[in-house]
C-alpha cells in the first residue's frame, strides 16, 4: 500500500514536470539552422528526394553503422540466451492444431508478394517513405508467416548467418570505398548522383539501403526463428 502511494506521488511529480513542459512549449515558425542546411543542400549534395533517408544513410551514416551493430549484437545475445532451451529434434511434441488448407494456400500466395513489397520498400528508400529498416522488417514478416503456417519449420540458420555477415562486410566495404574514392566514410558519391527522382540516383544510397535491408531482415528472422525453436514450458 505504502509502495503504491509512493508510485503515485512519483508519477504526480513527473506529471507536474510534463505539464510545465507542455505549458512552456512555444512552436517555431521557421526551421532551425541545421534543418535549414539539410533542406537547402540535400538535393545538390546527396541527390536523395527523401531528406530523412539522406540524413540516416549519409549525413549520419556512422550512427547507422552503430545502430546496425547494436541490432546484430541483440540478435546474437537473444540466440545465446536461448541456446540451452533449444527444442531437441526427438523431444515429444504436444499435438498442434493443423493450420488448415485456407491458411496454407493463403501463405503460399502471399509470401512472394510480401517479399516483393519488402524489396520495393528498401529499394525506393531515397524516393518514398521507408528504407532498409522497414523493408527488413517486412521481409522478416514473410518468414513469420511461414512459421505460423508450419510451427515446426526449421529455417536454415546457416543461410541467415551467411546473408547477415555478407551484408555487413559489404556495408563496411562501401564505407571504406567512400574514403578512397570520395569525401569520407560512407560517402554516397562513389557513384554518379544522377537526376533527382530517378530510381538510379543519389549515388550509392539505394545499394547501401538494400544491404541494410537484407541485414536487418536476416537479423529479425534469426530472432523469430530462435524464439520459435525454443521448447514449451
Amino acid at each position, binding site marked *: 500500500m505504502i509502495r503504491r502511494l509512493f508510485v503515485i506521488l512519483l508519477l504526480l511529480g513527473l506529471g507536474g514536470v510534463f505539464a510545465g513542459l507542455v505549458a512552456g512549449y512555444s512552436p517555431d515558425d521557421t526551421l532551425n539552422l541545421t534543418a535549414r542546411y539539410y533542406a537547402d543542400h540535400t538535393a545538390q549534395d546527396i541527390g536523395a528526394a*527523401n531528406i*530523412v*533517408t539522406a540524413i540516416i544513410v549519409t549525413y549520419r551514416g556512422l550512427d547507422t553503422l552503430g545502430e546496425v551493430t547494436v541490432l546484430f549484437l541483440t540478435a546474437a545475445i537473444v540466440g545465446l540466451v536461448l541456446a540451452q532451451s533449444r527444442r531437441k529434434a526427438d523431444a515429444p511434441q504436444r499435438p498442434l492444431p493443423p493450420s488448415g488448407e485456407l491458411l496454407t494456400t493463403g501463405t503460399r500466395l502471399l509470401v512472394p508478394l510480401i517479399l516483393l513489397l519488402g524489396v520495393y*520498400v528498401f529499394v525506393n528508400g531515397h524516393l518514398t*517513405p*521507408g*528504407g532498409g*529498416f*522497414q523493408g527488413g*522488417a*517486412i521481409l*522478416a*514478416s514473410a518468414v*513469420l508467416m511461414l512459421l505460423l503456417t508450419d510451427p515446426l519449420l526449421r529455417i536454415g540458420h546457416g543461410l541467415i548467418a551467411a546473408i547477415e555477415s555478407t551484408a555487413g562486410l559489404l556495408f563496411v566495404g562501401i564505407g571504406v570505398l567512400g574514403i578512397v574514392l570520395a569525401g569520407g566514410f560512407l560517402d554516397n558519391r562513389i557513384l554518379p548522383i544522377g537526376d533527382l527522382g530517378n530510381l538510379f540516383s543519389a549515388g550509392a544510397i539505394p545499394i547501401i539501403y538494400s544491404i541494410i535491408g537484407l541485414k536487418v531482415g536476416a537479423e*529479425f528472422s534469426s*530472432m*523469430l526463428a530462435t*524464439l*520459435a525453436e*525454443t*521448447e*514449451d*514450458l
Partner: protein
Amino acid sequence: MTPMLIGMSLLLAVTMVVAGVLATRPSQALSISILAAGLVSLLASVQFLLLAAPDVAMTEAAIGSGLTTFLFFFVLGRIRGGDRD
C-alpha cells in the same frame, strides 16, 4: 482541411489513451493486454502520419507494432503458464 485533421488527431489521442489503460490494467488477460499495446502502436503510426512524418509512421507500423507484437506472442505461446498472474 485542417479541422478534419485536428479532429482525427483528437480521436486518435483519446483512443490511444484508452488502449494504453487497457494494456496496463492487471485484470486483463495477458494476450488482450499485448493486443491493446499493439493497438497503441498502430494508432501512433497514424498519428505520426498526421504529424507529417511518413518515414516514422512506416517504421512504427512495421517494427514498433508488427514485430514487437509477434515477438510477444511467440514468447507467450511458449510460456502458457504466464498468462495467469
